[in-house]
């Protein structure tokens, strides 16, 4: 059973556009929601994270929107750049166990 469902599987965005990746969960015990960025051949790196008592968190061009009642959260990348091309994973945490989404491969066209 997949604890966190992520969509889309792949995404193509023009340079300067907005990239949006969505995740949904069922377990209301999750209490921490990070996003990770992974470049080919490398391990995932923490990008930004949010707690469920906050509806939005912004760090530079990256924003997490969190909807607790709908049990959904999303990553928005503003002014997307070719250097943002990577695979993005959402995750949900409960008792120090991380449950990852299936990943979204983002390709930003120059």
């Amino acid at each position: 059973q997949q604890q966190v469902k992520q969509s889309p599987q792949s995404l193509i965005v023009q340079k300067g556009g907005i990239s949006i990746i969505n995740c949904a969960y069922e377990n209301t015990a999750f209490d921490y929601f990070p996003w990770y960025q992974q470049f080919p051949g490398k391990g995932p790196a923490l990008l930004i994270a949010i707690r469920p008592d906050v509806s939005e968190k912004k760090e530079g061009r990256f924003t997490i929107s969190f909807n607790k009642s709908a049990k959904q959260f999303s990553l928005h990348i503003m002014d997307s750049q070719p250097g943002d091309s990577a695979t993005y994973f959402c995750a949900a945490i409960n008792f120090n166990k991380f449950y990852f989404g299936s990943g979204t491969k983002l390709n930003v066209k120059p």
Partner: protein
Amino acid sequence: SQTIHQWPATLVQPVGSPLSLECTVEGTSNPNLYWYRQAAGRGLQLLFYSVGIGQISSEVPQNLSASRPQDRQFILSSKKLLLSDSGFYLCAWMANSYNSPLHFGNGTRLTVT
């Protein structure tokens, strides 16, 4: 600062051979340690996690095993590799405190031939 080391970076092994992947963490004590596997173009599958020396929890049945002989050392092993064991293996750590972030190593690309 904390760092995580994982080796080797790539490994090609024949079917039926043993496996030993090692991971060490520096700059922290009593971390939670994790082994993940990532199949090509796929998500992250949690294999094992450890909250202390000698304490190993297995998430999926398989022919792999893990051990934690020292506080900051985590080892992934197999007695006999299968073709299906091919993948990208990632070690990760997090501080033993509430909602700490997970930090990944750079992974080992294992190809079983």
